[in-house]
């Protein structure tokens, strides 16, 4: 092996670390800082963390915002609502995405390239425009209702928009590629002779799937599920555009606190709790997985 030297190694690892430090860790710390401040009228609209006066440096940090979050049912319901919506979307994406990924992985040559292209194609259009397009499809006199009425299947428009259904549909539609691609990756990397060996040893197709294919594609499933679950929990655009009055999701609550109430500290506290609620279980799961791998 060619030695790149100590300095080379530090530089190589240092660049991405600095990047993450500046653009990920620092903003996160700023959000944490704001979450322990108080809301005031001014610019910026929150109290500073440190002030200096004759008695020296004074720290102002309060957990009042977190107490508020814990005390008000609205926030808890919004968190739970988000989590349930996102979890359901993740499950649906997995159910839809796995067979699709399987079909792509088992297609050959140009066909496989075409299918992969189709999965990635939505990224070429703005996310916002694609969500708006669903409004045109789902509205009472939109494409889908007109089509069904035209066929004579229904006589009055179905309530397809601005409810739980349309939010879930939007989430599944938007995040499906993020589930398909990692699962496709792990299926494509799966050694076909393992599948044949299982069949050769007497396993029927379902058994082959359960005992060999599924366990060996778990990393893809885990990656896909995280890529869907995490952004879906914090999703704002979809519940805002496709949701109705009964749609309660934390991303929308956060937006309202920030832009409508101009209460930056409470908004920041909501974000901090959201990050913690998502990051902790994932870190624990990862730790558990690593220990199992090592054992």
């Amino acid at each position, binding site marked *: 092996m060619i030695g790149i030297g100590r300095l080379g190694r530090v530089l190589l690892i240092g660049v991405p670390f600095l990047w993450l430090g500046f653009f990920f860790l620092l903003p996160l710390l700023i959000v944490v800082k704001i979450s322990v401040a108080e809301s005031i009228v001014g610019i910026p609209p929150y109290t500073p963390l440190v002030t200096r006066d004759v008695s020296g440096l004074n720290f102002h940090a309060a957990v009042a915002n977190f107490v508020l979050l814990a005390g008000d049912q609205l926030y808890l319901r919004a968190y739970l609502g988000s989590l349930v919506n996102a979890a359901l979307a993740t499950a649906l994406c997995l159910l839809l995405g796995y067979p699709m990924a399987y079909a792509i992985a088992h297609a050959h040559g140009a066909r496989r390239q075409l299918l992969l292209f189709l999965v990635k194609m939505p990224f070429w259009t703005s996310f916002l425009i694609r969500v708006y397009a669903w409004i045109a499809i789902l509205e009472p006199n939109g494409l889908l209702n007109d089509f069904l009425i035209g066929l004579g299947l229904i006589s009055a428009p179905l309530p397809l928009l601005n409810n739980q259904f349309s939010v879930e549909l939007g989430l599944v539609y938007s995040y499906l590629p993020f589930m398909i691609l990692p699962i496709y990756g792990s299926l494509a990397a799966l050694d076909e002779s393992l599948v*044949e060996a*299982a*069949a050769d*040893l*007497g*396993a029927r197709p379902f058994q082959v799937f359960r*005992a060999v294919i599924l366990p060996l594609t778990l990393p893809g499933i885990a990656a896909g599920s995280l890529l869907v679950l995490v952004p879906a929990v914090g999703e704002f655009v979809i519940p805002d555009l496709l949701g109705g009055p009964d749609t309660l999701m934390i991303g929308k609550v956060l937006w309202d606190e920030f832009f409508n109430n101009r209460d930056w500290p409470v908004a920041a506290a909501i974000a901090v709790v959201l990050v913690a609620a998502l990051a902790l279980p994932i870190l624990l799961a990862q730790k558990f997985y690593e220990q199992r791998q090592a054992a």
Partner: protein
Amino acid sequence: MALLDINSASKHFGAIAAVDNVSLAVERGSLFALLGPSGCGKTTLLRMIAGFETPDSGRIRIDGSDVTGLPPYARPVNMMFQSYALFPHMDVARNIAFGLRQERMDRRRVAGRVEEMLELVQMTGYASRRPHELSGGQRQRVALARALAKMPQLLLLDEPLAALDRKLRAETRLELIGIQERVGITFLVVTHDQEEALSMASRVAVMNRGRLVQIGTPKDIYERPSSRFVADFVGEVNLFEGEPTSRSDRPALTVAGFETPIPLPCGTDLPHGTEVVLAVRPEKLVLSQIPRDGFAIAATVSSLSYLGGGSTVHLLTRQGGQLKAYLPGGIRFARGDAVWVSWSAEDGVVLTE
């Protein structure tokens, strides 16, 4: 009745006939080798027996029953894969038990059989290792144990030794023969290595371009090749191409590059004008300082390769004809030496294909 009976099986991939009208019978309890260069269709034939490919035409029978349309999991056949195909997420014991669990054999019997198999392949004590913790040779043993665990009627081995290094290959070859004799299961080995096929099998089938070109005992295949391809592919050979002459009382061959007509074996009776190929194995050639009675070719030593137990001598006639001889023992000649080459006419094999 043969255990495995393949009746004019063919398989095309696009316009290419991977397996072309192959008929083959493998006797129960034998170690049968399917030999051929890469791309000759031997692996496709093996995969048809295992059930991974369906023949376009023809039938495959195992123990008298037609399995042509059966899926792999329903055939009384197991396969040892060239890549071993061990399940990376299972330890050695679970790999070996996999087939037994598909049969819903009870746990205690499974454990007993796994232990038995580990002992058979001398891997006792490795039950809880993962495949990635094993060496290539150990993985090969586990793959064999897994394929034997269900006691199939027929075991298919796809290039079982190809992934091992030379020394290990020779040892494992003997072990495989020993295990086959002990368990009594019919082994069908696919290999591109003629040495492997000749040394292991009781019968060898040679394939070329999707066709079966010769079936016989290893001795038949080596000593009496039926075609130019077999003579050339199996071992080293001197090939003489020419027209039979009628000049002398003995049948002989006029070959470009050789002044003396090359004698053909007694009783060779060929019509005039047919192109004939005569094959003579290098170890049949005798080199001497003075010409032997009857037939001898004058040549000079053009190169020597020392092989330990013997050496290969390449020779050149004055007219540019090339010969190679294999001499056991140490080197007795030097480059540039003038020698006389001869052999017994009966050691030559006339090939018309």
